[in-house]
């Protein structure tokens, strides 16, 4: 029985964090082969979350600044920045960027949450016009985001 409990705990740890977020209007959950948190619209605006190590350990402001400097250096053009607090009290910052992709200009958005040893990234991207059409809905949904355990 102990072994069974241990196996269950080990299996759960391997699952990684359980992200939660209210479904943004117009998005559907896309799970196949994308872990547990990926969303897409019918016309291809996509959202996905992942964790990285908070290493070196730093606060949200540090990583927001570092992300901004890095993406600017890589030639992305900043569209906007918005910091907010989720319903559950987590602090997050969304940085939106523009970059050419093929014949189109795309928006690439990165939302950061820092929780202890982890930095949770919620990335979103889509062709400019299509992204702009859903960005308010996405921003509203992000306020319900829970980085999980």
């Amino acid at each position, binding site marked *: 029985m102990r072994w069974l409990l241990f196996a269950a705990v080990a299996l759960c740890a391997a699952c990684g964090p359980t992200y939660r977020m209210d479904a943004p209007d117009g998005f559907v959950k896309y799970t196949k082969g*994308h872990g547990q948190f*990926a969303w*897409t619209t019918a016309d291809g605006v*996509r959202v*996905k979350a992942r964790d*990285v*190590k908070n290493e*070196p350990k730093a606060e949200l402001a540090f990583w927001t600044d*570092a*992300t901004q400097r*890095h*993406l600017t*250096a*890589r*030639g*992305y*053009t900043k*569209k906007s920045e918005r910091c907010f607090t989720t319903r559950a009290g987590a602090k997050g910052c969304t940085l939106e*960027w*523009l*970059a*050419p*992709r093929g014949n189109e*200009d*795309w928006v*690439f958005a*990165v939302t950061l949450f820092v929780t202890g040893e982890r*930095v949770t*990234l919620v*990335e979103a*991207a889509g062709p*400019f*016009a299509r992204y*702009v*059409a859903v960005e308010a809905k996405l921003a509203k949904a992000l306020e319900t985001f829970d980085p999980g355990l």
Partner: protein
Amino acid sequence: MRALLIVMLWLPTALQAAEATPLPGHPTRTDESERGARQTAIDASLTLKVAHPDQVRRLVLDLTKAAGGYPTLVSDGRLDLRVPPQQVDALLAQVSQSGLVLARTLQRNDRTETIADLQARLRTKRDIFQRLRAFLDDSNVAATLKVERSMTALVTDLEQLRGTLELEEANVRNAAVRITFQFHQERRVDQVVSPFAWLNTLDLEQFVGGF
């Protein structure tokens, strides 16, 4: 014969002089440039990201018309406009409110010297043309043919000068404004390596490709 000799001796010198100095009695370039306002050609461009290019294109065309300007090129991603110089700032400010401004340039080129120079050269060549005409009255056949050849060459020069002058004046009368709704081709994302490993995984292509 005498007329032919005069034409042959006088014409090359006169044409050379016309290139360099206006005839006596005509104002010099400096005189013209110092008189009155400077003549400035404005070249402006605006790269704007908008959610609905069709609507903004219509708005820009309406604003251009209201400002007394006109379009010279209208395409999906670009508008080339001609606008009275005094309206450029207001137009760009209004259009900028329609989207996210990615780039904005405004260049002012002083064309006063160039225009004064072209005007002076044009006047001098016209004077030479009139003088050559006078030679035709008392010339023999050979001299007449020679004069006519010179006049033909002069007409070509006059037309070229007039065309260049008209173009310069048109550029001063109306500013060139280019509005694009796309990034310029040269704006590419370069590879830059961050000391923070995970930042190097932030990439649009990687994100889209891995979805």
